[in-house]
């Protein structure tokens, strides 16, 4: 069971970068106005950011990382490890993290690799980074997370198009002797892999001419096999059955009563899911900040993005007890409980 703690690491800084280009779901004329209003009311997703053609996830992460490294006054030669968590890589081959090592001007002694997870990716990325750093042999790491999801969603598919926004983030994590432990609880359920997937383009269904054929799956849902498919009901039921119990288990393993937590930062899936989870855990509304209404579902960027956007001043000025929780595509999920101590938070970057 993946319930464990890691000592001697801390988050030193966070930065996030968004495209300036804003789409409003009220203008999504593929569906009738009434349906748009019901969608916005239920999912909470009113606006979202969409990257211009040609901009990649690594571009957004690169900008966030450059600003963060500067504000932390980190010497680039001291960065030992770089992890890029994303499902939207620059090329099929090679992996993007290695390109970022060079682009950021990091040493050739830097360890770099990609982790292709989505909504749960920030928590997994933190856990991997913590594991590398906790022994003190490697000292400093940059974790980049995010996705450009909008490129994979068909305009003619109402079940995916209005949900996602684009974003990239960078988090600085370092070895820090005697820091408070980070408690993790991670899980996977591959039996639900189809619930969020792109059928063609990998080796199981190699890309072919028919991959581009658009088909009507249901009214208002026309897409091809290289575009994202999403089963809302399955995701919803998965989230409600796994997430609350995962968090309860995490907090009881770390002897932390739920009332003592200052903030719960959830992956921004949609308002109905997030509110249902909050109600099941009986957490007060003001302890669960959200950005879903203005940025949409930003995959593995949603947790650090919400931290920067909603509780930046508190993160910078005082100690906080946080629970972060990511869940979704895979199916994959995880939560972490830890104390922060004055994190450097760059102002939200828009390009």
């Amino acid at each position: 069971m993946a319930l464990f703690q890691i000592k001697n690491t801390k988050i030193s800084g966070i930065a996030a970068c968004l495209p300036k280009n804003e789409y409003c779901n009220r203008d999504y004329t593929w569906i009738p106005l009434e349906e748009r209003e019901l969608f916005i009311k239920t999912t909470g997703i009113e606006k979202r950011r969409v990257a211009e053609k040609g901009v990649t996830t690594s571009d957004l992460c690169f900008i966030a990382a450059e600003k963060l490294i500067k504000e932390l006054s980190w010497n680039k030669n001291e960065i030992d490890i770089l992890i890029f968590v994303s499902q939207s890589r620059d090329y099929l081959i090679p992996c993007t993290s290695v390109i970022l090592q060079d682009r950021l001007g990091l040493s050739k002694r830097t360890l770099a690799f990609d982790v292709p997870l989505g909504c749960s990716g920030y928590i997994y990325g933190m856990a991997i980074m913590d594991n590398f750093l906790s022994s003190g042999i490697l000292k400093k790491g940059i974790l980049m997370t995010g996705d450009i999801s909008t490129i994979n969603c068909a305009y003619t598919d109402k079940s995916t198009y209005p949900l996602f926004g684009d974003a990239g983030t960078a988090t600085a994590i370092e070895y820090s002797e005697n820091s408070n432990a980070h408690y993790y609880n991670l899980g996977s359920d591959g039996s639900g892999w189809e619930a969020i997937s792109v059928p063609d383009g990998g080796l199981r269904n190699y890309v072919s001419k028919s991959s581009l054929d658009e088909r009507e799956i249901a009214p208002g849902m026309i897409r091809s096999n290289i575009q994202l498919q999403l089963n809302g009901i399955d995701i919803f039921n998965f989230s409600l059955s796994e997430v609350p119990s995962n968090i309860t288990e995490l907090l009881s393993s770390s002897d932390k009563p739920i009332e003592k937590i200052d903030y719960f930062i959830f992956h921004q899936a949609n308002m109905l899911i997030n509110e249902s989870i909050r109600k099941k855990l009986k957490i007060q509304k003001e302890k669960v900040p959200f950005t879903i209404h203005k940025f949409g579902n930003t995959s593995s960027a949603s947790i650090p993005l919400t931290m920067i956007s909603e509780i930046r001043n508190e993160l910078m000025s005082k100690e906080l007890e946080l629970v972060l929780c990511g869940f979704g595509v895979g199916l994959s999920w995880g939560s972490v409980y830890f104390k922060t101590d004055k994190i450097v938070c760059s102002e939200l970057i828009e390009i």
Partner: protein
Amino acid sequence: MITIEEFIQKLELEFDAITPGTLKPESVLRESVEWNSVNALILIAMINTEYDIILNAEDLKSIVTVNDIYQIIKMRMTK
């Protein structure tokens, strides 16, 4: 155990399209609210947060009337 009247009241609160006091146990759900994926999710969310019961896609297909949903809840709550 909740009564069907209490369950109907909760449903009427959840769906703006339903005029309070008009829903009956024999009402056909698809005629009372426009049946789309968003409304399906609202129903699942309500039943899960209120009764800790998960309605899956099969359940949704089998449901016709308000009483059908109530019977599913009743059966799973007494298990």
